[in-house]
């Protein structure tokens, strides 16, 4: 399985993402610059954290018009796994691949600390290696991670089991303690916590590794087992 780590001007967690996939997961991975116009050679797309385009205007808003984003949308429509972490999540919201929007943290503080997350849905291609209800420790690092959506959208998210991770102790004010959601089809996941920073005990937790292992497992089941 081959992953693409999309690099925007201002991405700064791209190296962590690359390391997680290459060294801890043992998969193929390549950096892909934001103006690339073809992602057909990749099986999974990773949008890393950081400050794309300096967070000007709103977090993630300018990145939505990067050349590569139309390819990311295409990959998502094809059913490929697309993971957006932190700024990557914000970009997915701005692009419309996921519903809702981000507000400043309620405390107005930048939060950088490990958070306990509850796995709400262990039946997605991103979470099959977890147990439903499992509590995992994954660090967050954001100033604008206060997830918002209206009542109607929230109802849809719940009905379709799209809320994948919630915070045990909500650090930012997110609606319903939401830390990560998928699209309706389940192949696009956006989350504020950084699983790529929790892939080795040296980092304080390796709870994030199972997320990447889940992606690979589902891909193998779908493509390798079938051949």
């Amino acid at each position, binding site marked *: 399985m081959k992953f693409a780590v999309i690099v925007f001007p201002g991405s700064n967690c791209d190296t962590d993402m690359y390391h997680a996939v290459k060294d801890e997961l043992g998969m193929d991975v390549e950096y892909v610059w934001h103006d690339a116009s073809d992602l057909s050679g990749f099986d999974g797309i990773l949008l890393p954290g950081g400050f794309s385009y300096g967070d000007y205007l*709103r977090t993630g808003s*300018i990145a939505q018009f990067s050349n590569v984003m139309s390819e990311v949308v295409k990959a998502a429509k094809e059913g490929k796994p697309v993971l957006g972490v932190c700024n990557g999540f914000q970009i997915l919201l701005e692009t419309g691949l996921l519903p809702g*929007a981000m507000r400043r943290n309620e405390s107005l503080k930048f939060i950088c600390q490990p958070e306990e997350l509850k796995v709400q849905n262990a039946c997605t291609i991103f979470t099959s290696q977890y147990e439903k209800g499992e509590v995992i420790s994954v660090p967050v690092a954001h100033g604008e991670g206060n997830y918002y959506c209206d009542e109607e959208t929230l109802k849809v998210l719940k009905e379709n089991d799209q809320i994948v991770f919630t915070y045990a102790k909500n650090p930012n004010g997110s609606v319903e303690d939401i830390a990560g959601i998928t699209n309706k089809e389940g192949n696009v996941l956006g989350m504020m916590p950084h699983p790529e920073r929790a892939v080795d005990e040296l980092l304080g937790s390796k709870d994030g590794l199972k997320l990447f292992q889940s992606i690979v497992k589902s891909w193998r089941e779908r493509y390798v087992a079938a051949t």
Partner: protein
Amino acid sequence: MYKVKVYVTLRESVLDPQGKAVMHSLHKMGQSEVEDVRIGKYLELTLQKGDYDLDEKIVAMCSKLLSNPVIEDYRYEVEEVVAQ
């Protein structure tokens, strides 16, 4: 040329923690009459005149990039200016 002034504000239903922080600071300054503060963005666009529908164009820009309709509202004013 047109000068378009765009005001982007958080929707009334969306909590504005920045505004709240500034309000508290104003209170500390002694301005206790201040009941609420909402912080928004102000953008100035300069557009060339042409064969296009100005309102349609502004709405497209405002709703797709300049504001996020999920949490923000916008309004705008248009001024005709003579290029210098």
